[in-house]
């Protein structure tokens, strides 16, 4: 668990793997967009107001508000969630 961090804490352009997603009003939407346990995710760039960031997930680029990204825990290693 030591190397599990919040998605918003990941430096830009660093690939990480989703470890867990907290239940929230947007967790169903995140799940269907491909934010599932074990999925590789890469933060790409922040919005001008730094309230949101764009992430590469399953071939698409998805913009997420930081409050929503804070429900996602990630790990640097792919096998960590198993």
């Amino acid at each position: 668990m030591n190397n599990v961090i919040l998605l918003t804490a990941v430096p830009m352009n660093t690939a990480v793997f989703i470890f867990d997603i907290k239940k929230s009003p947007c967790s169903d939407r995140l799940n269907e967009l491909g934010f599932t346990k074990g999925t590789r995710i890469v933060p790409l760039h922040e919005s001008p107001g730094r309230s949101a960031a764009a992430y590469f997930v399953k071939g698409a680029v998805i913009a997420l508000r930081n409050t929503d990204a804070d429900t996602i825990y990630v790990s640097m290693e792919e096998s960590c969630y198993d």
Partner: protein
Amino acid sequence: MIKKVLLVGNPNTGKSTIFNALTGKHQHTGNWSGKTVGNASGIMKYKNREFEITDLPGIYSLDPISEDEKQAVDCLKSGIAHLIVVVLDATCLERNLILASEITKLCTNVIVCVNLLDEAEKKGISVDIDKLGKMLKTKVIPTKARSGIGIRELKEEIYSYNKKCGCCCCSADCIYRNCVYSDQDIINNKDRKIDRILTSRIFGIPIMLLLLCCILWITIWGANYPSGILSHFFGRIEEFLLIYFEDSNILIRGLLIEGVFRTLSWVVSVMLPPMAIFFPLFTILEDLGYLPRIAFNMDHIFKKANAHSKMILSMCMGLGCNAAGVISTRIIESKKERLIAIITNNFMPCNGRFSSLIMLATVFISGGMLVSVKVALAVTAAILSGVLITFIVSYILSNTVLKGEQSSFVLELPPYRAPQPMAIIRRSIRERIVYVLFRAVAVAAPAGAVIWLLQNVSYNDITLLAYIADFLDPFARLMGLDGYILTAFIIGMPANEIVIPIVLMCYTRSSGLIEFNSLSELGELLRANGWTYITAICTMIFSLNHFPCATSLLTIKKETGSMKWTVASFVIPTGVGIILCIAANCILKLL
């Protein structure tokens, strides 16, 4: 009986482009998730047989969240379809295959269409179509719909489809790993390089404002000449008609020529050119994939206003038509935030209203060479004030009557795509020019007749129009307007583009002006009727902030299903408009 075929898939996979290619229809397409919010149907004729093709709004899974997705999933599960065509985006198969495998597990009447293969090739993604078909246990058709490649094969497959597919038992991940080969650079590809500029902390918002200003400047600069030419053309026709019908009945001369024909020609010559220029320019941004980037750039402001950032997409649609803007709020999942988006959509000036803004600004701003730049800046400021009022009203609503937890902001940023100029021009001619001409006949012509009757039917030697205008005049003066302007806003309720032509109609009767060479010439007419820059500013404010047109109100009633919120959508912008006009009038008079 005609067999029904449903087109389903994730948002922005090119379903509407395929639908148009199959049916020959002209369903709206756009490069962003949520462009299609309602079902569209059309007939595909192939080898003497007919199929009813239905283009469904994009869905990510079979458990819908937003209104448009619920509609699509209900239709999919209703069992009405002879065949379901699942459209996949070849550049994003890892996620698209999740929905495809869900559908092939649920239904057996499925074929799969892998679209956007041209874009995938450019990104270094290749797809093993045969293997994909074997793993999904269904027929897979590769297409490049924008260039028409694969459409004939898809038609043939729809035509000859007769056997059910097997049930797919592989996971989406497994299918993806076996069928898709990718060596794309996700960090330094072309899209990311563009994004680093267009959504950058330093340049993101300035570029956005500059683009808006440039579009408006091109619209203003370009509209002046066709307006003058059209006015001259209609003026000559009117002169000819007046001579030809010189001895005719007053009803033919007055009602039909000075009433109906003149209003119709005002609407076409003053309002049509800006609409015809702005719309294709805006469509270029839409097709490029820039609109979701605007939502991304402005997220922090929407967050502070307790509003959903997707609201900016419905606001952008509102720039074209507020009724379309109201319908496009279906992409907002939260009911509370959707209501806020519906009520505030009218603060974005639709095509009809910002043509009025352009005309008013052109008439009252002078300054030699840079006049069109100044006008563009004035209209940009007017639109930005509409955005600011939207934020303030959203904040007030979300903290009072529509209080609730703020929902999430999750939005796909689509790949940048080169716009197709010919398609944009065709669409603009069809949707703007034909639409405006139709509205000119359907709405402006009857309004012209009403105005002429009000101008010519008298009681105690005072015309009915003068009675109405005199009655409204004291209140209108308080707002910095006059009775005729307020009357025009009320009579112009069926369509915003007729408001300024009605004002001109009210004034032209005495002046006899029937044509002008440029928009600034109209200034003389308005000044002769007592207009000052305060009147122009207050008219611009009330044009931005007043009740929605009849079509928008009917759409709001249909979308909210509530009389209460329809009344609120009428009262709130009108109240804001009255307060702002009175305030502006008082302040400007003191200066």
